[in-house]
């Protein structure tokens, strides 16, 4: 039921291109542009929905109602906000480094887009089924640190500069446990291809065999996505909005879009590496694989939001200390334990 709907659409477009005699390379390129555009439109719609979801969840956690004026039950609130941001003035402050200041919002959405290219959205539904998928995804997502720093430096604002320094320090510190945590999974599967990693979880999800890695990845992921309790980068009460302080209009909107897109990337990675990706739990295959994938992703996102509106922000020294003194040693220990555990299992006769 609906399992192959997206694959059928893709092969229908492919057939259409073939029937009008488009050469193979050109039709490949057109197909890839169609896929990329479809993914980006889908992500943008998701982000519009996520902003509303975040506001509603935070409202209910704080015993409020949340946005309820625009559209039925306030569902069109974010759409109205986007239209408002589009028609706001794009301010360039006098003290800004104009080239860098302008460049940052133009390129900021590229890293998450690149990351979404290798994600298997369902059975056989990766836009690019890349052999080194996991490594590639880690590489491109860490690029966004530089772009946040560009925005922070270019603004010529002291709050932005403090925020930018924190972006670099925090992302750099939590990148390590994030990357090391995934190693346990890769040692078990012996591949970096995401589809194969999902297939390897047919019998048991890696959250059960690698619980510590999942926990480390999740905590580091909260930090990488700059969300409370690790949101020192844009701690509203001390540094206004961190790197985005000076941005207005679409400049601000692009940063916000990237922020929510990176939450999606982290949730998607959790799902693929630890929660069995598109695989249906208990063999409930009556729902399509992509549906299960998104159900799991949204459970992860809800967890992110729940944590954000439950815990207070921690201090900078606590943040850095926790990253380097707890998460890095723990993730290294996880590699040891996984390696030794695999030898023990094999000698027992797995």
């Amino acid at each position, binding site marked *: 039921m609906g399992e192959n709907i997206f694959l059928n659409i893709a092969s229908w477009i492919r057939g259409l291109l073939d029937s009008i005699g488009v050469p193979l390379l050109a039709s490949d*390129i057109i197909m*890839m542009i169609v896929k990329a555009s479809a993914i*980006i439109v889908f992500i943008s719609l998701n982000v519009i929905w996520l902003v509303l979801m975040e506001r509603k969840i935070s409202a209910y956690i704080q015993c409020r109602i949340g946005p309820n004026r625009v559209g039925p039950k306030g569902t069109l609130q974010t759409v109205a906000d986007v239209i408002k941001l*589009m028609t706001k003035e794009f*301010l360039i402050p006098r003290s800004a480094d104009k080239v860098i200041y302008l460049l940052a919002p133009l390129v900021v959405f590229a890293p998450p887009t690149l990351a979404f290219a290798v994600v298997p959205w369902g059975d056989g539904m990766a836009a*690019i089924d890349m052999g080194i998928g996991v490594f590639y995804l880690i590489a491109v997502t860490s690029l966004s640190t530089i772009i946040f720093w560009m925005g922070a430096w270019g603004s010529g604002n002291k709050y932005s500069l403090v925020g930018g320094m924190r972006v670099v320090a925090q992302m*750099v510190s939590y990148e390590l446990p994030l*990357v090391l945590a995934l190693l346990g999974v890769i040692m078990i599967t012996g591949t970096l291809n995401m589809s194969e990693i999902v297939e390897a979880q047919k019998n048991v999800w890696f959250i059960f065999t690698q619980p510590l890695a999942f926990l480390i990845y999740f905590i580091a992921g909260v930090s990488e996505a700059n969300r409370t309790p690790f949101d020192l980068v844009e701690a509203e009460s001390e540094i206004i909005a961190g790197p985005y302080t000076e941005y207005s209009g679409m400049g601000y909107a*692009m940063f916000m879009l990237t922020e929510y897109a990176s939450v999606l990337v982290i949730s998607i990675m959790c799902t693929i590496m630890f929660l069995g990706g598109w695989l249906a739990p208990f063999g409930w295959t009556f729902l399509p694989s992509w549906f299960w994938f998104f159900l799991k992703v949204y459970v992860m996102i809800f967890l992110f939001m729940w944590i954000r509106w439950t815990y207070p922000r921690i201090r900078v020294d606590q943040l850095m200390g926790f990253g380097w003194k707890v998460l890095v040693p723990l993730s290294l220990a996880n590699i040891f334990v996984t390696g030794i555990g695999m030898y023990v299992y094999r000698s027992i006769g797995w």
Partner: protein
Amino acid sequence: MLSDWGAVLIFLVVGLGVGIGGVAVNLLLNPRRKFAQKYETYECGVDTIGPTWVQFKTSYFLYALLFVIFDVETIFLYPWAVQFQRLGLFAFIEMIIFISLLVIGLWYAWKEGALEWK
């Protein structure tokens, strides 16, 4: 046939297109009423004092140095992890020695107070 990296290039172009398109639409639609105060640096209503781009805390730099060392380590660990089951015990012990060296480095940095936020 389109190679994997050609496809990545297309994704990069589309991703950049979103940013450029969004800002371009904004620049077409936005109002421009210029007056001097509007282009001041935002600082809660007071004039900003002194230059913005000043020397900064060295702690940030220490973390960056540590990061470079450990990040290179993780790049070495990835190919090893992929081949882990085929390489056998010898490679595993070798990697334990390699990681131990870095753990000693981390311990030294810790002992010297590079991980303290002062």
